[in-house]
């Protein structure tokens, strides 16, 4: 094994983002990613956006429920829970 890993380029970084966030990279790969991030504003921004996207998917704003569905479900609620 080489003592120093090849530096990562941006095009490789974007394919490793999910593995990086999931914590499934080897220690060596993780260090390559982190070293690259320290020197690359573009990838740092990309990572931040990626995180933001993931987080926002978990907090998607409500979308309007079909009024018939809603009425129907409310009737079920009254029957089962009220």
């Amino acid at each position, binding site marked *: 094994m080489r003592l120093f890993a090849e530096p990562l380029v941006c095009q490789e970084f974007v*394919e490793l*983002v999910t593995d990086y966030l999931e914590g499934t990279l080897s220690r060596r790969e993780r260090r390559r990613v982190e070293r690259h991030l320290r020197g690359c504003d573009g990838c740092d*921004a990309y990572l931040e*956006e990626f995180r933001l*996207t993931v987080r926002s998917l978990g907090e998607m704003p409500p979308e309007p429920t*079909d009024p018939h*569905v809603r009425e*129907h479900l409310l009737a*079920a609620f009254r029957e089962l829970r009220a």
Partner: protein
Amino acid sequence: MPSPDHALVARLRAGDEAAFVELVDCYDVQLRRLARTFVRTNALADDVVQETWLGVLRGLDRFEERSSLKTWIFRILVNRARTRAVREARQVPFSSLASPEDGEGPAVDPTAFAADGTWAQPPTRLDAEPEARLLSRELRGHLGEVVDTLPEQQRTVILLRDVAGLDGPEVAETLGISEGNQRVILHRARTRVRQALTEYVQA
């Protein structure tokens, strides 16, 4: 966004209709979106979602708050949808859905990079609301339609992982795929969603 779970669950258990309406408005459309990836028709998806809500109402007293309320509801949907898909014998096994769009190759368009692999143009900053570290309300309003445009496997995985909040091993198990494969599909899906959002910012 819903109230904190604990308070909402207490209200639901107490028979508070407004709490139930809040819950339905938060998740009904998302549940339909996921149901549609498990069964063949909208009518079947509607049945599955209705059974899910009835399961929620009946199971509320047994909910132990070990996961979020949302994740618990989506798990009920997954169980109903799988039962239904088996009963209808119409489910195509997930691993056989070889969509060409899910293909191999890099997730990010190679033209985004120069010949040396550095950014041809630095990534566009998505416009984030600073205090919450979330996308702006306007951008978040597009998330649903963006997810709807994903190839089916990607749509299923991103809905289960990032929208419903299931963890990787659970998603892999649910879909009968390896955890590694689950991560590859998730990565493609997230990459596409991020890309689609930047297009709204630039538009």
